[in-house]
């Protein structure tokens, strides 16, 4: 599904954002990507959705060889992915419904099929009642749900979430996290970058930790932390 093999990523002004990172995320998995700010979490995600070029190594995502992707194939890759950000990135002058529909329209989906698909995902994230609301009329948690609905509406095989709860209070965080777990339970792989360790401890999911661009821990490969810490 997502496979990094000896991936290096150089900063434009020198220095390495990622150093020799390798991992493999299988279909349907839920993976936490953890580490301090600047550890390289966002960079990993950006390489996955081809927002930044790979410096060296191989990145494979849903059958795409990202490092050798032609610019005009990038949109095709992104249509297979759902992407969610800390700052939601909704269009302020469109309603929740229009924001979600937008993601379908740009892919050239059949117009007649759009309203039903939009309502289905809005219902899935629990916002069917607020379909006509503009982002400014919604709480942070609700805005993130709209963003998640937008990410889901193209039925991606992977949902990438970059600090999706970073701007949310505790209650909204729990709600959004539960939503991501539900989405994963229905078969979609979820890669969630976060530095919220409480959240990470709450669930028995795989953890990949980055430190200064290097992969320092992968719970699928390494021994569990607690046992490693207490010999």
């Amino acid at each position, binding site marked *: 599904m997502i496979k990094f093999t000896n991936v290096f990523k150089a900063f434009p002004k020198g220095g390495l954002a990622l150093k020799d990172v390798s991992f493999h995320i299988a279909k349907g998995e839920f993976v936490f990507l953890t580490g301090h700010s600047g550890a390289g979490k966002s960079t990993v995600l950006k390489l996955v959705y081809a927002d930044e070029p790979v410096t060296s190594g191989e990145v494979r995502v849903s059958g795409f060889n990202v490092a050798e992707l032609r610019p005009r194939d990038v949109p095709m890759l*992104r*249509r297979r992915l759902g992407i969610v950000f800390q700052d939601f*990135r909704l*269009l302020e002058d469109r309603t929740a419904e229009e924001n979600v529909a*937008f*993601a379908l*329209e*740009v892919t050239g989906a059949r117009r007649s099929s759009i309203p039903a698909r939009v309502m289905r995902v809005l219902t899935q994230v629990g916002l069917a009642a607020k379909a006509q609301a503009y982002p400014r009329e919604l709480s942070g948690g609700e805005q993130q749900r709209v963003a998640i609905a937008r990410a889901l509406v193209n039925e991606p095989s992977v949902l990438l979430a970059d600090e999706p709860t970073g701007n949310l209070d505790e209650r909204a965080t729990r709600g959004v996290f539960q939503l991501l777990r539900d989405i994963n339970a229905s078969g979609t792989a979820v890669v969630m970058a976060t530095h919220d360790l409480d959240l990470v401890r709450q669930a028995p999911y795989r953890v990949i930790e980055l430190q200064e661009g290097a992969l320092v821990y992968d719970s699928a490969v390494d021994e569990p932390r607690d046992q490693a810490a207490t010999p």
Partner: protein
Amino acid sequence: MNLTIREALLAFRRAPLLSALSVTTIAFSLFVVGLFGLVAVNLQDALQGVAERVEIVAYLLPGTPIESITLAEKDIEAFPEVHSAVYVSEDSALARARAELVEFRDVLQELERNPLPASIEVKLKPEFRDAEHVNDVADRLRGFGFVDDVRFGRDWVEKLDRLRQIAAAVGLVVGAAFAVVAIIIIGTTIRMAVLQRGREIAIMRLVGATNGFIRRPFLLQGAIKGMLGGLVAVGLSYGAYTLINRWLIQAAFFSNVQALAIVGFGTLIGLFGSAASVGRHLRRV
């Protein structure tokens, strides 16, 4: 396609001020081009009128038999440059002089002998009314044995030629300069629209929109702005023309085709201006 139109029109509603600014700047740039066009059209008309009067007159020796003249007339009319060759007899020359030179009527009345020679008046086809061809035809007329003298406004024809060339060159240079200015201005206003919607473009790319899909509404928007600018420019030119006509001189306005060409030119400028700025933006991010 529906979506493209909707998005393009939405941009006008979302940023009415910026859109109005674009249309206005395009309109004024084209208006300046249009004014020069108007000057060019009128100058062309005026020169056309003057050029039509370019005439070569071959004065004939007295006593030339009418048969030779008729033959010569046919020969001259067969010259490729010649539009018409008309024989003017001594009598009709005098009659014409009496009619045209009213001040000298008395003098002309009292003449005992007609002093005016017969002549053949030669008019050239429009495309040959320049110094070179006039000289050429005059030389050939001199070749006829019974032609006494050939007259034409040599200086005048040459000056007309130069004036025509200068008018064409000035029109071309000024028009091109303002067209470039218009393209730059339109590129800039579209660029402002692109930057204003940078966030939206970023989100579109994120959810998998192709560059073509992102570009199309901007192109349509640019073309619409250019077209509106062109229409306003034609309107402004018409206003200027009306004023000039009333207060200054009798002038001519663009033909429908020329007016349409200005609007079409505006549309093209809008299209290219937006293509350039959107292309640059998409390559950069």
